[in-house]
């Protein structure tokens, strides 16, 4: 139970931190914010790697993991690249 309550604390505090941070993002950057957070949600790649690469798991589980790795990688690579592309346009004058 100890671990669970710690995870819950982390979750709740992150929600409050999220509200504080996101409300400070100006409307002009809301589209890059969305694509950037898409990239961050690609953190599920961490879980996907565990499912896809575990040698002891049945093949079917590894295949589910493969799908997860593919989708999460699209989010990570696509999300960061497209965000960078947009932000570079905001930077120049």
């Amino acid at each position, binding site marked *: 139970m100890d671990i669970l309550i710690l995870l819950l604390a982390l979750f709740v505090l992150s929600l409050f931190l999220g509200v504080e941070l996101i409300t400070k993002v100006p409307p002009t950057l809301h589209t890059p914010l969305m694509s950037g957070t898409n990239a961050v949600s690609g953190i599920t790649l961490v879980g996907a790697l565990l499912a896809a690469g575990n040698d002891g798991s049945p093949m079917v589980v590894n295949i589910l993991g493969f799908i997860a790795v593919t989708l999460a990688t699209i989010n990570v690579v696509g*999300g960061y690249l497209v965000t960078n592309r947009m932000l570079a346009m905001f930077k120049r004058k």
Partner: protein
Amino acid sequence: MNENIVNFIYLIAGVLFILGIKGLTKPKTAVRGNMLSALGMLLAVVVTLLNMNTVDYTFIVAGVVVGSLVGSVMALRIQMTSMPQMVALLNGFGGGASLTIALAEYYTKLGATPATFAELLHPVVADSSAFGAGPEGTVALVAIGLTVLIGALTLTGSLVAFAKLQELMKKSYGLPGGPIGNALFLIAALVAVALVVVEPGNVAAMVTVVALALLLGLFLVMPIGGADMPVVIALLNSYSGIAAALAGFILGNTVLIIAGSLVGTSGLILTRIMCVAMNRSLANVLFGKMAAGGETIDADEVYAGKVTSAQPDEVAMLLETAQRVVIVPGYGMAMAQAQHAVRELADAMEAKGVEVEYGIHPVAGRMPGHMNVLLAEAEVPYDKLVEMDRINPTFEDTDVVIVIGANDVTNPMARDVEGSPIYGMPILNVDKAKTVVVIKRSLSPGFAGLPNPLFAMDHTLMVYGDGKKAVVEMTTALNQA
């Protein structure tokens, strides 16, 4: 590798994500923020790989290669006007990843050894202790069920949103009974989740959750269209984050929880901003139609004999003598790919000493910040893009407002006509300017289906035709003047 070291590095990754979003609070620091966030991702992935005991890299490498290819082609090829479609797809993939992770974890913990996908349906004898001791097992099962539910509906909902934005799906279909039908579907899915929690080996219940959630995603988004899309995309963005955070609870993984909750709140805050900007509740956007308010307003009555039209070169003469011009873009500017032409018109005016700014309504376009990205692409400096609250007081001192491809967000009925369906929605008060130029194909109504009395006002000039062509002609005439 020591678990403590792994978690310490996850903590560093989480901090980098936070710094990354903090960077997005200013255009100047945004690029660096994005890099920091990407660095955090790299750290988290590398430490996860190093920490795995018995690894078979076949599927990992295959997935990373395919994903990187698809992701980079999408990111580099996509046009800025199509950014809402890209974000919709990424939301969906995020949901899909959480869904498949939760399923993989479910079957692993069950101790099932299915040899084929068909065997995934075979029931297994198991209780919650397979998922963790005492309450931990129950919590893990609840988290698995909810991740599957939210992940699956985010996946299909986002694909529908993509199809609608791409105009592959034009009609709106919904469940019979509308919100009641959806609610019944949701309750059925939650009952199936409860079944899985009580009886973890009941694989049929898990498959039912998947099927119901996939269908629910379809039915939730299919009836929604057009100008309500920004809300849907922001909400699905939030769901993909919540699904990731829940997956963190399944795996006991701290960085997933931090990242997922940041994304979840981001989507929710954007959803709220969009709803406030339309003066509608979230429930009304998701389940309601735009109310057909009181008496129907006859468009002919509003417009009859009162609409003045003008040619681009006549507008150019007005612009030449103006001191201050505000450009108000809408989705029509994106459709006409007119952002570069608009920038050139602004340049031509500025060369003549005219002060030019852009008035951006929060829901202009098909996603939050859509217009800002398009104008940034056309190299308009971001400090010229002014939010609604700051531009509204300046309209009275503005000589000419050019409305291009926007309609409902300029409709004075929202301010003046109590009982109108859009009454109370904050608008850009463009009618306060000395002259209003509206570039539009025809007098057809916007998404709200209402006539716009702005078009019939004495100081409004309608320029009919393709937005890009009209703007280019204005620029040419202005340069020759």
